[in-house]
């Protein structure tokens, strides 16, 4: 068996096409953007090599660390939200009547493009005639919050639609993982007198731990490089209160023509993402990993 499963030609055939694509289209840009980070370049004119200056500036750039902190917070919220999605998926995957329809409905927001989601939530948060403040006013609240306009609230207000936008993504994966759990194991546990909670906790969750671990990594890395809704809804404001790494990078490179510094931020983002992934893997290390 070992010999069949370690045939070099087969491995090459299976891995090389993808590897070549990724190396050319992702790794060349990564290397190049690391290089641009070593230059003073406005994107259009001449490139001036300045060594590590951009990276040194980056380390001392308060705004970069603020935006990094915001991105990390978003990562934490996303991971926490996974618990909610896990519960919903567990319910949907248990033989509940109507769960098939419910599952389809739950994933609908994911189909919408960010343009639509941003518009919807801007309207929900509108301080004057938005949904939330209309309700608060009718309840007699006098000083209604300004939501996205309030630098103290904006960051958290914007987390909500982001986390909500990805609900479908996580539910659909968790669901597929859960229905893959062999029926015999659940049946056996039930015969032994385990209740639904115990079955979920002791059998289902451990069996999908591989998927869960991947989802944690996806949630964290996805959050660290998150861009769309933040850029459309607040533009990182007010006053950088909702700035994240990717929006900061975009503003520097495409807004201010600082492609050199923007690339350095992008490279910093990459390094932080790798560190985060490494930490998660260390933290979630299980014996099943080979």
């Amino acid at each position: 068996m070992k010999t069949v499963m370690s045939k070099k030609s087969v491995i090459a055939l299976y891995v090389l096409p993808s590897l070549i694509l990724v190396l050319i289209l992702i790794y060349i840009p990564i290397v190049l953007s690391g290089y641009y980070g070593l230059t003073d370049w406005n994107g259009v004119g001449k490139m001036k090599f300045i060594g590590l200056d951009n990276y040194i500036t980056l380390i001392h750039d308060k705004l970069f660390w603020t935006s990094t902190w915001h991105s990390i917070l978003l990562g934490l919220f996303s991971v926490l939200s996974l618990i909610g999605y896990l519960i919903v998926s567990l319910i949907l995957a248990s033989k509940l009547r109507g769960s098939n329809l419910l599952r389809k409905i739950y994933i609908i927001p994911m189909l919408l493009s960010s343009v639509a989601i941003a518009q919807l939530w801007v309207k929900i948060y509108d301080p004057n005639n938005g949904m939330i403040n209309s309700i608060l006013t009718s309840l007699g609240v006098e000083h209604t919050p300004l939501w996205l306009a309030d630098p103290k609230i904006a960051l958290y207000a914007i987390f909500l639609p982001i986390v909500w936008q990805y609900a479908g993504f996580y539910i659909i994966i968790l669901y597929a993982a859960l229905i893959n759990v062999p029926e015999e194991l659940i049946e056996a546990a039930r015969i032994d007198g385990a209740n639904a909670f115990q079955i979920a906790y002791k059998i289902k969750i451990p069996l999908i731990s591989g998927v869960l671990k991947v989802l944690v990594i996806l949630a964290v890395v996805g959050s660290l490089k998150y861009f769309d809704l933040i850029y459309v809804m607040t533009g990182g404001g007010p006053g950088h209160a909702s700035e994240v790494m990717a929006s900061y990078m975009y503003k520097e490179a495409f807004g201010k023509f600082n492609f050199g510094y923007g690339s350095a931020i992008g490279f910093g983002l990459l390094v932080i993402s790798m560190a985060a992934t490494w930490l998660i893997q260390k933290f979630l290390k299980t014996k099943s990993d080979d």
Partner: protein
Amino acid sequence: MNQMETAKVDMPSTPVLPAPKRIKSTALKKAGMGLLYIVLIAIAILQIYPLIWLFELSLKTNQEVFGMSPFALPKHPQWSNYVDAWTSGNIKSYFFNSVWYTIVAVVLTLILASFVTFALTRMQWKLKGFILALFMAAYMIPLHSTLIPLFNIFNHAHLINNPLSIIISYVTFNLPITVMILLGFYKSLPREIEEAAIMDGCSVHRLFFRITLPMTAPVLSTAAIINMIYNWNEFVFVNTFINSEKWKTLTVGVNNFVGQYLTDWGAIGATLVISILPILIAYIFLSDRIIEGLAAGSVKG
């Protein structure tokens, strides 16, 4: 079996609840189920509302969109928004392009990602860990860091204004996340069947196509849905690498209505409604495959 053991190590042990008494439990159970359904339906309403809102938006004038309560119904439904959406660009060719770029990219991504995941989880070779790390790190680069280098690469390859640049980009940029999703499943799939097949002298290719792929049908459907949605809504690559109208996609139809001093939100709503219908139908269709795929897989298993 491995996972069961680790679970016992990792998870803090919970106190086993005393078995509840029979008679009480049925009444409680019913109340509990009722409550559960109320919560589930409330969530469902929250999740479906955006679609309804979008439909309302598509029938409003700009004057109604801004300044008025966003939840008021349109006073005079502007069906003309749909006419605008349909006629303001080559929506038919956009549509056709969106469909075939998406299908081709999804199929290629799934097959390539399955190959890679199979090799990573089932086969024995030295560089496994390194290659996996390469794929994972590829997921971490922010999109806008890649645009200028990518444009240069495609430009040198004479692939600018060529649909191939879009499809290749979709496949490549979705490969890492697809591999990672598949990875979790491959690891939890029982290996006994595959091992038995090898013992019987089955070749690797036959094993992959005949046994592994069918067994992973539920996750493939899942990954297909995710890939499909990503590709369908993508516009940065299309706008950067494509110049001529004839190769652009539906997302361009939306952007058509964004202007410097005026953005026609009603028409954007209409375009979004038009563009969401095909993906909604495809989604419902694929979504059922998750379960059917499972049934097929487990029977064979």
